[in-house]
């Protein structure tokens, strides 16, 4: 009995040492949970064609994804904002060069309860008054935002500080990434925000448009006016059209994948990225995002073909009001 156990154990250890640790071609992806649904959809379709290539995707957040990516642990990083300076530096230190590819737009929707009959639209200025750090504890009633609005409490809902959506919104509205009042109901789970606004007549909140699309019956979308008539006059709703033609500003942002240049040399990664850019338009629509104009996908394809490395955003992180094809063209 003991001898048998000993033999099995020895065999197991021997096997562990002799078996070559090789799992076949794998494309490793990690990063933003906002970009994840697109990556999941692309991987799903990709594996129907390329059965022998394994694709894995994680959701450690844009920042968490870049940490692994710049350490050479992943091939592709999902990002809901451009790479930041610190991340650029870490990547350089580890010798990781990257190709930045935009894949879709995500609109941020401003949402109120359907019972709210006073808010017809909001200007960016009014949004700033609602959300800036100086308003904490002071601006708490609807009447303080605009004359004539009811003198009732205002309840704010938004994503937590770890979210790329929070970074982008604060940058776009308050003017400084991460600058927000703290006395609002924060949750990393957007469905909690949906529930909060749906059950509170005095609520207002912001999150990705995909969550509005799936909860149209319990939420009301608010048009936003950026006060800049050069990009279209008047308040706009985050419709497909308004996001693509650049009138829904500043609350529409591009989302990206970053491909390691070294990994791009591997046939499985190359195949996957080419497939991604080919299918991104169709699949991003399917999971609730807004596709880029065809021209932008062509430019991204060229960028990948030429293996153009670096970020067109110059390591400045989230940037407000960018039309992606303009930036890509700048580099042509």
């Amino acid at each position, binding site marked *: 009995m003991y001898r048998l156990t000993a033999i099995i154990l020895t065999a197991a250890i021997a096997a562990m040492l002799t078996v070559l640790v090789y799992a076949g071609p794998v494309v490793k992806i990690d990063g933003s949970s906002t970009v*994840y649904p697109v*990556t999941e959809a692309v991987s799903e379709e990709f594996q129907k064609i390329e059965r022998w290539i394994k694709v894995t995707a994680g959701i450690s957040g844009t920042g968490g994804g870049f940490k692994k990516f710049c350490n050479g642990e992943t091939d592709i990083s999902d990002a809901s904002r451009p790479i930041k300076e610190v991340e650029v530096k870490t990547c350089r230190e580890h010798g990781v060069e990257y190709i930045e590819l935009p894949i879709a737009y995500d609109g941020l929707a401003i949402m109120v309860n359907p019972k709210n009959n006073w808010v017809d639209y909001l200007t960016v200025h009014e949004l700033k008054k609602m959300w800036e750090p100086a308003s904490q504890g002071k601006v708490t009633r609807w009447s303080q935002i605009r004359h004539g609005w009811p003198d009732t409490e205002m309840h704010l809902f938004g994503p937590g500080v770890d979210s790329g959506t929070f970074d982008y919104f604060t940058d776009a509205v308050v003017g400084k990434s991460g600058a927000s009042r703290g006395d609002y109901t924060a949750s990393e789970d957007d469905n909690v925000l949906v529930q909060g606004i749906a059950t509170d007549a005095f609520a207002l909140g912001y999150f990705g448009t995909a969550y509005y699309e799936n909860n149209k019956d319990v939420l009301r979308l608010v048009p936003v006016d950026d006060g800049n008539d050069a990009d279209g006059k008047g308040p706009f709703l985050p419709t497909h059209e308004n996001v693509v033609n650049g009138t829904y500003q500043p609350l529409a942002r591009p989302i990206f994948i970053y491909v390691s240049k070294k990994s791009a040399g591997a046939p499985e990664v190359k195949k996957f990225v080419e497939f991604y850019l080919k299918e991104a338009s169709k699949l991003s629509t399917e999971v*609730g995002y807004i596709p880029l104009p065809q021209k932008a996908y062509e430019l991204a394809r060229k960028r990948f073909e030429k293996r153009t490395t670096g970020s067109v955003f110059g390591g400045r992180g989230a940037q407000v009001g960018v039309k992606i094809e303009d930036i890509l063209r700048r580099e042509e």
Partner: protein
Amino acid sequence: MRKSALNKWTDRSFFAVGLIATLTGLGVLLILLTDVLTDGSGRLSWQFLTSYPSRRPEEAGILSAWAGTAWIMALTGVIAFPLGIMAGIHLEEYGKKNWFTGLIEINIANLAGVPSIIYGLLGLGLFVRTLALGRSVIAGAATLALLILPIIILSTREALRSIPFSIREASYALGSTKWQTIRYQVLPAAMPGILTGTILAMSRAIGETAPLITIGALTYVAFLPASPVSAEFPFINLNGLSDAFTVLPIQIFNWVSRPQKGFFANAAAGIIVLLTITFLMNAVAIWLRHRYQKKIRW
């Protein structure tokens, strides 16, 4: 007379309070179960258990998630169980009582209360990076093993301590060595207690998400770790240990946070599967405990 009436009343009211306390716990569990079952039972099907993740809720399944959970739990047990029990035996039976063992004891007790994400960071630094195991099944299992090790050590020591010293003395008196005494007298008698502690520890580990996300467990995995049994010599294939994986809590967490309502039903169905695995695991441990208990004849 009045005193005894009061005592009787106290006795009855304590019974009532105890009953209410028990029913509160059971009631909440019942509400939770009914809620999850009504939401998720419609989604439970063979297709759900045998499909990979998908962007379409009705096509998505949890094959990679439950297989990952099964791998991780089995390996966690294999690593943590012997290590924990041996450490417990050493500290309780062999360790001398001095300031050094005192220090170790306090540290182990403290470790049992450390938030799980800290273990995730340790696992990332030690297993994933330093030992270069990558974001693999073995790295995940080793991390969770570390997480539950303190609980297993503590419960092993408690179980050993509850064995009357006279048993050990009787064994020595018959000429047994220390090892023989532990192996044939103390350990079998302490086994039921040790197993109870292990059940609790494993039940904690199966629901963990944070440490596994930290070490890089994934969400989209459309393949299974390589099968541990192979047709060729040496018939054991350990390739699976180095494969990427996902587990049930991560898949459930991802579905709950998606905008499409169809994913909520998937999440509920996933919870049912997770609960079933936990119940099965506990059932095996309880059966083992029962077997050991029957063997004790003092």
